[in-house]
């Protein structure tokens, strides 16, 4: 990649090598894991292009090519064209809804001759670009209601389109933009996060303990808090406390409705399996059950490369795409899984650190956005394989098999690395 061209050396020289090293490490781990997951005696070469591992190499090559091109393009390009990229991606999302191919219940693929691609993978990046360029404008201030509405719309429109494709997993990823809104000082963003966490906890506990028990618990809690407030003579805090508890009661009350009416049956089952309310290792819980067996059987040091029995005999479905982490867990053991988790945490922390050193709001917002996106992908994907999250089909960045996600994540990261390399040129 490195040439002795002076012009390039300037760029290359300022590139954040830590990020790049983590990236290459993850991509290589992914490729070898796919090789192991899909290994076939008939095609023993990792370069066999008729097999998934060969194909993944082609995708890695394509991703590296695009990433390299992005490093060569003027850094201002993406800022300048962010709105257009956003519009094009939105249009392709609409096209998917009209012409798309359905796989596993979600209509998210679009075909151009032999090439299939998944616009929802690119929608996250386009949204990050659009939001970054909007917040970069000098007249935009998240303290103004109008600007908050526009920012929310920029995020919610693609999210809604993805949701319409029945691709709940990818739509959930858009929640990650709450991190960047929080960082950019949107009033209420912090509260939104807290309310979100509280709501999730109420949801989970209501499902585990039933509504009645939750009402009792909340009632007792409220009595204690009110008593405390009265004794402390903080009368002006009593009304807000009552309102807050009222909202909590409302949430608990609506859990049943939300659970039964909003969620689809397979989603309900996945949640119940996660919470241990539904035990069905042969049915809906099969994936998670087998995935936990595969990872758990890896032990401390793993069974060794190509030695996994659980993944090799197809006990784990989707083991080269959404459940690639199982292969790492079984063959690499705790050493392998913790290495991957640490690599991801390092990448995320590194991106945040880099985002904070940017001079332009565009670059910073973009950096936070992609950090959030990576985080949600990793948290949900790994979480579901170890039974901490319900089964939601989204890929593990850089590791899962698949061209669209490999390209999208690489380009997403490359744009940020380019912005970072160019940061000193911004006055």
């Amino acid at each position, binding site marked *: 990649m490195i040439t002795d061209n002076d012009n390039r050396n300037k760029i290359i020289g300022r590139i954040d090598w830590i990020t790049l090293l983590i990236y290459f490490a993850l991509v290589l781990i992914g490729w070898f894991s796919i090789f192991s997951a899909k290994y076939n005696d008939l095609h023993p070469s990792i370069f066999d292009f008729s097999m998934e591992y060969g194909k993944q190499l082609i995708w890695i090559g394509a991703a590296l090519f695009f990433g390299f091109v992005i490093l060569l393009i003027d850094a201002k390009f993406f800022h300048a064209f962010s709105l257009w990229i956003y519009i094009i991606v939105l249009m392709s999302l609409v096209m998917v809804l009209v012409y798309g191919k359905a796989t596993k219940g979600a209509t998210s693929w679009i075909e151009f001759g032999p090439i299939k691609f998944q616009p929802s993978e690119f929608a996250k990046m386009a949204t990050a670009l659009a939001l970054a360029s909007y917040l970069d404008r000098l007249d935009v201030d998240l303290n103004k209601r109008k600007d908050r509405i526009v920012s929310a719309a920029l995020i919610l429109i693609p999210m809604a389109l993805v949701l319409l494709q029945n691709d709940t997993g990818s739509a959930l990823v858009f929640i990650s933009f709450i991190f960047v809104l929080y960082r950019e000082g949107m009033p209420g963003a912090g509260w939104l996060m807290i309310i979100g966490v509280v709501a999730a906890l109420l949801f989970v506990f209501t499902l585990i303990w039933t509504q009645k028990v939750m009402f009792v618990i909340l009632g007792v809690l409220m009595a204690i808090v009110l008593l405390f407030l009265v004794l402390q003579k903080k009368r002006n805090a009593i009304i807000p406390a009552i309102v807050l508890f009222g909202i909590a009661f409302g949430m608990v009350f609506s859990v049943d409705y939300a659970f039964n009416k909003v969620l689809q049956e397979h989603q309900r089952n996945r949640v119940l399996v996660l919470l241990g309310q539904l035990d069905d290792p042969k049915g809906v819980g099969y994936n998670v059950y087998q995935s936990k067996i595969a*990872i758990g059987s890896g032990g401390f040091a793993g069974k060794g490369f190509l030695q996994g029995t659980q993944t090799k005999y197809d006990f784990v479905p989707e083991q080269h795409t959404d459940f690639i982490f199982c292969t790492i*867990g079984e063959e690499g053991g705790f050493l392998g899984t*913790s290495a991957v988790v640490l690599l991801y945490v390092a990448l995320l*922390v590194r991106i*945040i650190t880099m985002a904070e050193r940017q001079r332009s709001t565009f670059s910073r917002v973009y950096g936070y956005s992609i950090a959030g996106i990576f985080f949600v992908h990793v948290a949900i994907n790994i979480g579901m394989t*170890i039974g*901490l999250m319900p089964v939601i089909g989204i890929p593990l960045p850089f590791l899962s098999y698949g061209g669209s996600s490999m390209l999208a994540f690489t380009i997403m990261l490359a744009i940020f690395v380019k912005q970072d390399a160019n940061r000193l040129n911004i006055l």
Partner: protein
Amino acid sequence: MRRGYNNLSNRKLLVMGVFIAVGLIYLVRLFSLQVIDRHYKQLADNNALRFVTQYPARGKIYDRNGKLLVFNEAVYDLMVIPKQAMRNDTLHPFDTLGFCILLDIDRNSFIERMNKAKKESYLKPSTFMTAVSKENYAHIAEVLYRYPGFYFQTRTVRHYPDAIAAHTLGDIGEISPSELEKDVDGYYRQGDYVGKSGIERSYEKELRGEKGLRVMMVDVHNREMGSFDNGSLDRDPVTGKDIYLGMDADLQAYGEQLMVGKIGSIVAIEPKTGQILAFVSSPTYDPNLLVGRERGKHYQELQKDPMKPLINRAISGTYPPGSTFKTVVGMIAMQSGSITPQTVFHCSGPASMPIKCTHSHGPSPDFANAIMNSCNPYFYESFKATINNPKFGNIKKGYEYWKDMTYQLGLGHTFGTDIPYERSGNIPSREYYDKMYKGQWNSVTIRSLGIGQGEVLVTPLQLANIAALIANEGYYYPPHLIKCFGDTTAIPEIMTTRVDSGIDPRYVRVMKQGLRTVFSGPAGTARRYEMKDISQCGKTGTAQNPHGNYHSNFIAFAPAEDPKIALAVIIENGGYGATWAAPIASLMIEKYIRGYSIREDLEKRIMEGRITYKNER
């Protein structure tokens, strides 16, 4: 937005904190899952198990006297696991030529079979060659160790020692996709065998038994390492139930011999139980043809045969009953009070209107006389008197009564016992005539019904049941094939439930006496086949049909005083009822009651008789 540049930058700590916290939670979880908890390690070991299905022996089928009709014979399927067979072992290369010579196949066939197996699965066993005979098995198995990846799997196929009753016994074959879909219990797997027709189909659940299971441990290289947990999860297969049929194997074989060279059917019933004694459909075939490797080929050949041997004419053939139907018309007329045994109708012989008489007898027959002579005008008049009986109000209500009575007599519907693919025949509905004649019809319009012609169609089984219910003087048991199971399981209640025909025994006895005169009377249409020591009752039928010469029909039972056998015979295009059907019925009766026939000339004439069919259908 530049304002927030500094003071907001502290918020990165919370974001990073969330990232790191989640990372830590996951690390803790992974540590407990992978290092602390050994539970999953054990589960993983258990996961590498192979479930080997153990197939039970299918139940055997016997005749009513315990004579074996169907049993199982072991055959050997040569199986291959392509991955093991294709292993590139340079020290011991696979001896393809030797293998081909051993199996007596050529190289191309070897490659073809191998490719097919590989296509099915590379790692799992597929059938390389099905149903290798016992003799070949012995000498192949001896040297099979030289060829890795190949092994024999034992399977059983049906064998029929006497090669009779092909239609009744039915056959088994690989389960079809649509049958798999209907299998709500999820018992069957692709490639399993199920009963496709006959007894094999109706008693599939009882005959098949229950599959067993062996749980084997498998290592990473897919090699079996012995039984899991000392076989605690293993389940022995349960052998299928044996079945005893009501059929008399000797009578069945005799019936098939009599029917050689003729198209048609014989159905013989034991009146007291409804058990079927003989169930002949001709032409028939050797049931051993539809077994094993050549099943598909033979099946196609039989299907292409213009004589349609695969059709069971005893239940799928629907025929005009002709004059045998006069028993039905006569009994209903008496039951409805429209005629009495003493009623006399005028017959002008061939000049009768609207139906001429084809028999010569006196001009004013009473009931007994009319039955003996099969007088057409008498039964037309009886039919007319029934449906025009003033007590019904009008002819349409009268006809509906008549139709309901035929239904009670077992016509126009299936019995629904244990005979698959039964057809219901046809007794036209009142609505049918209303539509056909736009509401304008009367007894003359539908006169043919009175003599068993026109729209009325019956199966030989239904006709035999008519004979049985007359023999019983008014009731019947739904005809069925099974006598009992090999164990104490009761047979379905429907087959042991007595059905009342709705005809008063008084009138049935009158009919019975009339049918006796068909053999014994001076003008009886079957008097040539009267025997001194066995009192037979019967009724001839000569049915016009659109396929050429008359169908020769006959119903009969014997002995009159205590009927042991009731039967119907239909010989397609056999001419008069008395020519073929009556002597065949009489010989069957003699065979069943005496055990052999003393009328050797008659027997010879029938067995050697061939009927030529102008247009073979």
